[in-house]
């Protein structure tokens, strides 16, 4: 029978229970959804990496021979090796393709989305699925790929995803992959034309005549002359990779750099997204849950307290305390079980799937799906337990009294002392409604605190969501307006001759830079990968200090280190950094002469002159120019032409993805905020109904009573906004400083407009809800309200 009573009580107090249901559901939906999305990201990648055997290490160099392969394979702990030739090619419609010529496909295997898998003897190309989709290329289509003098017309044999190409950009300065313009392709090594290799070898040997060449090199096998530039290594035990690395360095003189897969751009970017997300899980979903639970606790306490007389009656009828407690625990228990199930379901299918799908449009990885995490179940169970415990504690406190006491309505505990402050002179000048509300707040501190906490949390979330967008926009401005002071960036081919370089200088100017991949050795002898930006770009690439004010480039007697790197490594001005270039075992020691801020790259900067003073050759890899290249698609000896506008557009593309996520977060914040305001409004209204009825009896007009009611809610909203705005800033700043990938250096930069939108938005929501609730005052039945309180 008590079950019937419980369900009917729920039906009777439907609005309270619906809000409890919604708050728990939204809280758990947000938590489990973001968790499922993050875990899904991780699980999807782990599975993809494992099934498709992502390499453990990569050796970059030149001209890796069969013997080199054998040498590496014979190193202890090496399971398998594969070499490839990776070059940047152009298609007939001026798209850029990273072309990989391979001999076999056992490491970083293709995931074939459509078409057939790798066959060494197959004639054709396996194409990046995303690129193909963007360019409407299908299996069986023919594409033309050009690389140096080779022009290959190849049939598309398959559309693929590859585990080391989850994230591909032409250049690290591009933050957002442009799949329409840039993709990857794989071909069998057999597809490299013999004539091309032959002519290259002839050129190198300075032989003009083919006949002479054929006579001279009778046993010429062109495959022996293919210049493989990377080797993928699969190891038995990842923890022993350093040993393998050292042995390769000793045995292979043509190995320029050896990188663990965890340091590659594709891996780092994907992992960074997961790490970033982990902080979001903690912050956003934690906040959602916290706000929701605060409100649920308040509501549940009130629901049980409102049943006081019924609890007394049940006791009077002979129901044991345990039975009554069990009955009331059921109220919160069942509703929170249902809400938790709904939250977990919606979290997985709505938030998890939406976010994963967004990510999967950014990262090229098949079968992306959310993954329900055990912590989501734990959070759901904890939420149920918290509600049950709160119900238990409230119920128990009522049951502690004897039935006679319980049957009497609890007289509000008005402590004169606490209200004495409102007898001061200042208060006597205030209006009745103001004093009434001040006293009501003093008497209901917990309810007021809960309301402020709830609304503050929502205001914070809105500020944070808008602030993240602002900060990203600010970053775009800093990067593409302040630091980059050029229109085009030309990435020069690796083997360019001096005369060809001079030709480029003549046409496009000589503002150049070079990026050196280095290893920094710390005091304990640990080595860390990094890079040095060597500038000879004058004002085309600028520098800023920690406050984003422009500063001059470093002088020629030392290096600049970025603030974040200095902070991580505890560098001070005057400290010395020991480093060596990959492929060169000479170590150099450079003095830190200043710090600069770089939002994207935490590295070292030096001038060309300083580099040359160290007796290191400066051969630039980039030219910066303001020459109009809008109609030029291809430049000889330039691998890629990057337009700053395109870089900016790419960044904005990433922002638009972020916007979708933030819109979702803001929507949940607004929804949750509205529910909380409505819920606490209902509680506050219910508690005041008797007093409002009395005021009505005394002749107060509905309008006056509504004013009293709305006034307090407005105060709560204003106080919450005052607290929520700065907290929102700190939350955003904290998120940027801790959640974002290591190589970024972002800080919150929130515009006045966002603060205004958050403040006005929060106030308007609160006001609308109060206005809706205040209509109840019109319908107060004076007799019933007053009698019910007897």
């Amino acid at each position, binding site marked *: *029978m*008590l079950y*019937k*009573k419980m369900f*009917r*009580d729920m*039906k*009777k107090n439907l609005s309270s229970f619906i809000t409890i249901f919604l708050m728990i559901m939204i809280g758990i939906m947000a938590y489990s959804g973001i968790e499922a999305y993050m875990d899904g990201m991780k699980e999807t990648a782990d599975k993809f990496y494992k099934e498709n055997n992502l390499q453990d290490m990569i050796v970059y160099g030149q001209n890796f021979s069969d013997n080199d392969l054998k040498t590496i394979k014979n190193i202890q702990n090496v399971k398998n090796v594969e070499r490839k030739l990776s070059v940047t090619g152009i298609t007939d419609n001026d798209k850029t393709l990273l072309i990989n010529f391979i001999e076999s496909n056992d490491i970083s295997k293709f995931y074939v989305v459509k078409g057939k898998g790798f066959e060494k003897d197959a004639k054709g190309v396996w194409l990046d699925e995303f690129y193909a989709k963007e360019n409407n290329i299908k299996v069986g289509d023919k594409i033309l790929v050009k690389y140096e003098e080779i022009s290959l017309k190849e049939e598309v044999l398959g559309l693929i995803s590859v585990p080391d190409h989850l994230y591909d950009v032409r250049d690290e300065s591009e933050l957002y992959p442009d799949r329409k313009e840039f993709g990857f392709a794989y071909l069998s090594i057999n597809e490299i034309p013999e004539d091309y290799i032959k002519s290259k070898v002839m050129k190198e040997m300075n032989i003009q005549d083919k006949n002479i060449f054929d006579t001279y090199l009778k046993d010429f096998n062109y495959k022996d002359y293919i210049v493989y530039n990377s080797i993928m290594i699969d190891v038995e035990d990842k923890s022993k990779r350093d040993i393998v690395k050292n042995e390769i360095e000793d045995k292979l003189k043509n190995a320029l750099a050896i990188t663990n897969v965890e340091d590659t751009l594709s891996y780092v970017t994907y992992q960074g997204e997961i790490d970033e997300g982990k902080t979001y899980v903690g912050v956003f979903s934690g906040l959602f849950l916290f706000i929701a639970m605060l409100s649920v606790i308040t509501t549940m306490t009130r629901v049980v307290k409102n049943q006081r*007389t*019924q609890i*007394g*009656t049940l*006791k*009077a*009828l*002979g*129901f*044991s*305390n345990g*039975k009554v407690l069990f009955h009331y625990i059921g109220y919160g228990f069942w509703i929170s079980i249902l809400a938790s199930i709904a939250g977990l379901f919606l979290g997985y299918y709505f938030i998890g799937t939406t976010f994963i799908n967004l990510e999967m449009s950014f990262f090229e990885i098949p079968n992306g799906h959310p993954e329900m995490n055990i912590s989501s179940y734990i959070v759901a169970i904890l939420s149920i337990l918290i509600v049950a415990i709160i119900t238990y504690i409230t119920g128990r406190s009522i049951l502690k009294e*004897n*039935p*006679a*006491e319980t*049957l009497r309505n609890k007289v509000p505990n008005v402590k004169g002392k606490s209200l004495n402050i409102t007898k001061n002179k200042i208060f006597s000048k205030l209006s009745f409604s103001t004093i009434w509300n001040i006293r009501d707040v003093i008497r209901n501190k917990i309810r007021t605190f809960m309301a402020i906490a709830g609304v503050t949390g929502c205001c914070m979330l809105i500020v944070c969501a808008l602030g993240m967008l602002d900060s990203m926009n600010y970053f775009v401005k800093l990067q593409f307006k302040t630091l980059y002071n050029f229109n085009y960036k030309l990435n020069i081919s690796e083997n360019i001759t001096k005369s060809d370089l001079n030709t480029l200088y003549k046409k496009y100017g000589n503002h150049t830079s070079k990026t050196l991949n280095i290893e920094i050795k710390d005091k304990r002898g640990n080595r860390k990968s990094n890079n040095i930006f060597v500038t000879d770009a004058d004002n085309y690439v600028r520098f800023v200090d920690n406050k984003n004010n422009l500063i001059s480039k470093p002088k020629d007697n030392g290096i600049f280190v970025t603030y974040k790197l200095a902070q991580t490594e505890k560098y001070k001005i005057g400290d010395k950094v020991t480093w060596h270039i990959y492929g060169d075992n000479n170590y150099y020691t450079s003095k830190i002469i200043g710090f600069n801020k770089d939002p994207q790259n935490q590295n070292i900067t030096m001038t060309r002159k300083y580099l040359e003073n160290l007796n290191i050759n400066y051969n630039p890899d980039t030219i910066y120019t303001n020459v109009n290249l809008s109609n030029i698609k291809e430049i000889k000896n330039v691998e890629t032409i990057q337009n700053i506008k395109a870089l900016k557009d790419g960044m904005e593309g990433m922002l638009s993805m972020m916007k979708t996520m933030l819109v979702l977060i803001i929507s949940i914040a607004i929804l949750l905020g509205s529910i909380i305001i409505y819920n606490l409004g209902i509680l506050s209204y219910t508690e005041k109904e008797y007093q409002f009825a009395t005021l009505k009896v005394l002749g107060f007009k509905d309008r006056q009573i509504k004013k009293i009611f709305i006034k307090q809610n407005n105060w709560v909203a204003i106080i919450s906004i005052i607290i929520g705005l700065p907290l929102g800033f700190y939350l955003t700043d904290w998120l940027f400083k801790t959640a974002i990938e290591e190589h970024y250096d972002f800080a919150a930069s929130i515009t006045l407009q966002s603060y205004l939108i958050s403040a006005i938005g929060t106030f308007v929501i609160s006001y609308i809800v109060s206005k809706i609730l205040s209509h109840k005052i019109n319908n107060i039945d004076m007799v019933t309200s007053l009698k019910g309180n*007897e």
Partner: protein
Amino acid sequence: MKESLIILKNVKKTYKVGEQEFSALDGVNLKINQGEFVVILGPSGAGKSTLLNLLGGMDKVTSGSIKIGENDIAKYNDKQLTNYRARDVGFIFQFYNIMPTLTVEENVALIKDVTDTNKKVEEVLKSVGLLKHAKKFPSELSGGEQQRVSIARAVMKNPKILLCDEPTGALDSKTGADVLKLLKKQADNDTTVIIVTHNSLIAEVADRIIRIKNGKVESNETNKHPKNIEEVKW
């Protein structure tokens, strides 16, 4: 002569209000027989409801003893008091205190959750004239009908003692008389009915009239000529 079912000896009950102690009952001695129809009269704050609460095991004495049959319920712990309320006592309140979300028959059947009873809901409802309203919710009933639900619920457990706190206080005189008839019927069936009221007219139908003032029994008289309910001019 009937046996004394209830014997109170020097019952005291004090409440603490802030720093001050307030004596609600100050040495009450009483004997009430089984099957008696008792009315307790007294002004507001005299201690009537406190006495009723103590008799019903809803509150605990400060000192003294309350014997119900052979047992002193003043010495009972919470669990024993719960069992006592479940088995032996029926309550009827001024504002009915029936569960608003249970139907009439469900309110009565609720008793089956706390004690074994051989009474049938239908029969009990019939006896209070509510059978046709069995499926209705309390909000669909008049005040008198709601009080009858309350009586039916109390009767359902076949209690030794029926304690009524102002049972007609919220009803008009005709409905009040109907309710009293039902209560009288319970006394006729050997249930001890104790009514606390301001209304001295009710005393005219009682077997015993107890007057309380300032926490003390002012008088405890047997009504030698109790009237029939129809004879009382309400």
